[in-house]
């Protein structure tokens, strides 16, 4: 273990926190605790993952891995006894979380309210599960470790009936005008406020009474309040009545300010040696891009934004700086680096070393799985099981007559839940370099339900990417005419036609997509990319600009514009757009490559070398990059130039493969299953 740059870490999770809500409040001095944190530390955007489902995301935050590696694929899963479904359990997680890794290294963790932590794992420290906060007194068994703390912590839980009118009036100033018998919104606000307050009570109790090296606290309030009250936030939405707007417009700002008050209180308990990391799993639409309320109710995920927040402050962290290109996968690697522990090579994220004051080179190991498991505070191997496999095992017992079958509607619910989680897993795999693993899963899903168009289109996209053109064509031919006319499918057909060598047909599909472009930013980015392939620079730029209008934090569109600028010899503009793109997402090899080309053409040699090296490190187009680096390094570092020339020569002798890293941000929007 290398000396740890930081002594302790306080990790705070604010589900759905978004800079677009926070920045106006910071500017008007209404979130002073967060303002102080930012001033003395670092802030940045934090890219989420698909699908934007909180149990999956918070588990990715806690493990540093995509969902195919951690196994948490939804809000619910079949119960182990086959009696129905329940909230997703810690026994379903397939890999270690940060608290397990710390446990086996003799470090203590206090974890409060984290998603998918029930039943409580026997970690070194305290685990208060997500279910502790919502379970009745009689059902608190296994929600806390060590169990002897259960009663004392239960007494701290806040219930809605203990709130005062003025507590709610801070959110709804005209509360007295409401008829609480007919308007349930204040009661729902009270319930959510009580839950958040319970988290705060438990967290503040533990932070001062139970020793810790990592304290991790999860608050779901901003997301829960958002799903209920964001439609009333200014500016007034079309479907919101004037009266409702007047009554409820202050709720969201009040919620953020309350979170700032809680942050202030929590920070009173830490010392200067503690690093504070504040993150959210995704952002939340709060302006003109909010979906209409009815659409938001049907599809809550449509309210989520690609970028959440990250903010760090601590003795090892730079001050007043920006963090660029961060994703939720990076949090665990960063905590490990801060605590002087090796980062697992099987983790999908990276530590944010660029914001450390002093250069830190964390050790790396192949992975933490299978090492020191007996000290890691894991559940026993008998307890840990894949819920779908457990459900299958129960089904077999039913078939054999050992147990009675659950009611038909329960069985259907179980089947639907398993299917929903498999679809979430497929969506997650499409984001990773392991896209090929989604193919058998999608085939299985399609075989179960042949009319599932999302599965068919996702499978067609995978097959196209993997060069299975006939299979992709066969699938797309089965889509309904209406589906085929959608811009997203037209782009898919264009890509397929291009792969088949039929440029004329491909172009007609692109033009059809452009004509029916709709409003989704990802679709416009796809249309832009398609025009790029035909060197229709003007049309491509127009499509990318439409994409940016719909979503300004848009790496795909920014990189697309950079490509247009490169094609037109506008080097500085290309560099500007590429920098914005990689500033949003680090793992974006094409954008780093485009940045490098722009820098090279602008004569910024050292910067170009750094950008090419980043793209190379991300696995992009090695043969081209080695050639560029061989030329650029000639005068600055002839030895390095020679190495690159050698690598280029070796690669030229092999069959050429273009690195198959497609940014998932360039793929289309995924309809809800």
């Amino acid at each position: 273990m290398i000396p740890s740059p930081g002594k302790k870490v306080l990790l705070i999770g604010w589900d759905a926190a978004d800079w677009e809500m926070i920045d106006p409040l910071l500017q008007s001095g209404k979130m002073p605790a967060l303002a102080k944190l930012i001033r003395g530390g670092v802030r940045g955007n934090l890219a989420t993952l698909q699908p934007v489902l909180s149990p999956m995301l918070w588990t990715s935050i806690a493990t540093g891995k995509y969902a195919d590696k951690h196994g948490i694929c939804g809000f619910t899963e079949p119960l182990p006894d086959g009696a129905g479904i329940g909230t997703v359990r810690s026994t379903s997680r397939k890999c270690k979380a940060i608290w397990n890794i710390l446990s086996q290294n003799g470090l203590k963790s206090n974890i409060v309210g984290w998603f998918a932590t029930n039943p409580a794992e026997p970690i070194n420290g305290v685990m208060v599960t997500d279910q502790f906060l919502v379970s009745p007194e009689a059902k608190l068994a296994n929600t806390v470790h060590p169990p002897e703390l259960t009663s004392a912590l239960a007494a701290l839980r806040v219930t809605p009936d203990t709130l005062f009118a003025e507590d709610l009036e801070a959110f709804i100033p005209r509360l007295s005008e409401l008829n609480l018998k007919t308007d349930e919104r204040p009661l729902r606000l009270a319930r959510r406020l009580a839950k958040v307050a319970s988290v705060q009570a438990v967290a503040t109790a533990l932070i001062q009474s139970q020793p810790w090296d990592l304290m991790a606290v999860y608050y779901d309030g901003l997301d829960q309040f958002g799903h209920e009250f964001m439609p009333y936030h200014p500016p007034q939405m079309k479907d919101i009545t004037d009266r409702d707007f007047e009554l409820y417009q202050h709720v969201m700002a009040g919620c953020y300010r309350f979170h700032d008050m809680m942050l202030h209180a929590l920070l009173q308990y830490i010392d200067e040696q503690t690093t504070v990391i504040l993150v959210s799993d995704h952002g939340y639409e709060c302006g003109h891009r909010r979906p209409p309320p009815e659409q938001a109710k049907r599809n809550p995920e449509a309210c989520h934004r690609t970028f959440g927040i990250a903010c760090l402050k601590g003795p090892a962290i730079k001050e007043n700086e920006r963090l660029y290109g961060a994703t939720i996968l990076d949090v665990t690697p960063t905590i490990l680096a801060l605590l002087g522990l090796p980062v697992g090579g099987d983790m999908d994220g990276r530590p944010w070393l660029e914001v450390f004051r002093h250069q830190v080179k964390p050790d790396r190991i192949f992975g933490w799985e299978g090492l020191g498991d007996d000290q890691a505070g894991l559940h026993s191997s008998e307890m840990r099981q894949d819920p779908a496999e457990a459900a299958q095992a129960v089904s077999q017992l039913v078939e054999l007559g050992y147990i009675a079958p659950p009611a038909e509607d329960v069985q259907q619910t179980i089947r639907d839940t398993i299917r929903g989680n498999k679809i979430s897993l497929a969506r997650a795999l499409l984001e990773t370099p392991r896209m090929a693993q989604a193919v058998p899963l999608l085939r299985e899903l399609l075989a179960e339900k042949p009319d599932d168009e999302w599965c068919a289109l996702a499978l067609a996209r995978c097959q196209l990417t993997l060069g299975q053109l006939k299979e992709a064509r066969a699938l797309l031919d089965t889509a309904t005419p209406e589906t085929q006319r959608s811009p997203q499918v037209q782009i898919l057909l264009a890509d397929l036609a291009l792969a088949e060598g039929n440029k004329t047909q491909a172009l007609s599909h692109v033009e059809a997509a452009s004509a029916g472009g709709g409003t989704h930013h990802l679709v416009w980015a796809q249309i832009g990319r398609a025009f790029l392939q035909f060197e229709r620079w003007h049309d491509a730029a127009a499509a990318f600009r439409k994409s940016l209008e719909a979503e300004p934090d848009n790496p795909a569109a920014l990189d697309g514009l950079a490509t247009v600028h490169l094609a037109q010899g506008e080097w500085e503009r290309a560099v500007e757009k590429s920098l914005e793109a990689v500033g949003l997402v680090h793992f974006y090899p094409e954008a780093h490559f485009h940045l490098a080309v722009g820098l090279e053409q602008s004569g910024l040699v050292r910067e170009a070398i750094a950008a090419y090296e980043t793209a190379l490190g991300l696995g992009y187009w090695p043969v081209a990059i080695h050639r560029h680096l061989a030329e650029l390094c000639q005068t600055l570092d002839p030895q390095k130039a020679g190495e690159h020339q050698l690598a280029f020569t070796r690669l030229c002798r092999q069959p050429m493969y273009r690195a198959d890293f497609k940014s998932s941000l360039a793929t289309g929007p995924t309809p809800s299953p």
Partner: protein
Amino acid sequence: MESRGGKADVPNPRSAAGPQCVLFAETSNPSVTIGVVSAPSSLALLAAGVAGIAARRALRSERLKALQSQKTDP
């Protein structure tokens, strides 16, 4: 604003099957400004977590007593 009619008992919300009652004090502060809570308001005590619990319980107890005495006084 509503208050629970005449009784000192506060229902245990954990056992309530239906919508939970929210206890409103009869005398609320009409001049609460959004989010600007000067300590030690009840919301600030709520945000304080465990440190505010005792004070909030004391406040609640005071208000319940005040409610009861208002009902019994002529």
